[in-house]
């Protein structure tokens, strides 16, 4: 199962026939395993990693550090939920260290994101401080180097 997951994580579009060959199993078994993994929410979704900047979009991404006052019974979870339900919020992690939540936000412009932080995030009950960092340039995302110049430099035929 692990190997199947690793293959799909790397390339979700691989045909089942190829997966079956590589894993030394039948196509039926591979399809059954994938359905099972989807059902158990081990596979959550199949996304495409897109270089939007190259496509021509000028989106703005910001990492927001948030400090919270934990609440009785639920700790950070209730506030985290209030935050991650916003569509603008792409990623939320509970962190150790000098802040509590790391939130990644995407917006159309700097103003857009700043507004969202000021009006929606910092006003939430229990949020005591926010610090925004705007991303300037992505180099590597989810294990993929964005502008990878490496190519096959080998000779065509060698012993």
């Amino acid at each position, binding site marked *: 199962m692990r*190997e199947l997951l690793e293959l799909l994580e790397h390339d979700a579009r691989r045909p089942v026939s190829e997966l079956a060959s590589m*894993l030394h199993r039948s196509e039926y078994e591979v399809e059954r395993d994938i359905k099972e993994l989807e059902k158990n929410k081990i596979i959550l979704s199949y996304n495409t990693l897109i270089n939007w900047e190259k496509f021509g979009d000028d989106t703005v991404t910001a990492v927001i550090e948030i400090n919270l006052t934990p609440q009785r019974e639920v700790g950070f979870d209730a506030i985290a939920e209030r935050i991650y339900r916003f569509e603008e919020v792409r990623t939320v992690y509970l962190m150790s260290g000098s802040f509590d939540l790391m939130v990644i936000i995407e917006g159309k412009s700097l103003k857009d994101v700043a507004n969202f932080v000021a009006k929606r995030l910092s006003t939430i009950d229990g949020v005591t401080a926010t610090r925004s960092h705007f991303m300037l340039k992505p180099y590597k995302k989810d294990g993929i180097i964005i502008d990878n110049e490496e190519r096959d430099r080998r*000779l065509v035929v060698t012993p």
Partner: protein
Amino acid sequence: MEKKNDWNDRLSPGVRSIAPSGIRKFFDIAAQMDDVISLGVGEPDFVTPWSIRESCVYGLEQGYTSYTANRGLLELREEIARRYHQVYQTDYDPQTDILVTVGVSEALDIAMRAILSPGDEVLIPEPCYVSYQACTILAGGVPIAVPAKIEKEFRITPEELEQHITPRTKVLLIGYPNNPTGAIMTRKDLLAIADFAEKHDLIVISDEIYGDLTYGEEEHVCFSSLPNMQERTILLNGFSKAYAMTGWRIGYALGNPDIIAAMTKIHQYTMLCAPITAQIAAVEALRHGEKYMKNMVSEYDRRRRLIYDGLTKMGLECFEPKGAFYIFPSIASTGYTSNEFAEALLKAEHVALVPGSAFGSCGEGHVRCSYATSIDKISEALNRMENFLRNHRR
């Protein structure tokens, strides 16, 4: 340059007797095409893992640009001894039993030169790597080909070797996991070879450059780890295949102190030492490279299954390779010789591979496909080959 004389008759007879490599022609044709998919490459498609490259860069920054000891950096020899002890339970002394060389190619050359007298015979199971015969001849020896059979998955047996023994037989040269067939030898197979070597008092040169690349249940068996074999074995290995370091040119020989001292004598006068930059990178590979190597091996394994399935489905007879990164299907059913097949496939479908005959005459009727290339390219190459077979069967 304008040439007034024919210089060929003044060349050494040994050099003249060596045929040019059968691979060259395909290289020239393929180099003209821009959409070639090559299954003809005998080296990893991975770039050397970054941590290994980075250690070399750091070494250069620190000014490590000098010669090293002839035998190589002591810390590298210690790491080699440690790894062999850990993986194969062998016992090599870094001071006397290890020589760091410029790839296995140099190690093989100087091993031959250190032990052969003119006319000594070297048993070489075929198909085999292209330089085995040439190195033997250049060292004054006589290569004796022992054909391995596809029915036995290209494993060699003592009975087959026995037929070629003469009073001049001095060396047995084996290379498993094998380039070009992908064959491996099991412990049982090798124990029989060990008995044979002992019976005829042969020196065994074991080229184990693909030793880390085995798949499935059978693990690689190091020949010198077999009972009583360490002393009579010259074991050759390097970093090219397992750590994707072909261009660094770094390898080593392990053997008894007398033979290693003799090889060191040749090495010190011809090579002096392996490049220090490559030696520093090799230390890093042995200390921290295991996980990168394991990842590459898993990837080769998936490609291996994919290409084995693909070739079998299109009706080319082949056995499942268990090591290296080659598969060696038979193309006899197509009516072509292996040379014709490789040339026609390259011209019609722009897929490059290497005719089996380049690896010895018993490789005729086969082609070597390397799966050291991406899954996407392997898939596309398989499609093109299937297309070729549909249109070109004789």
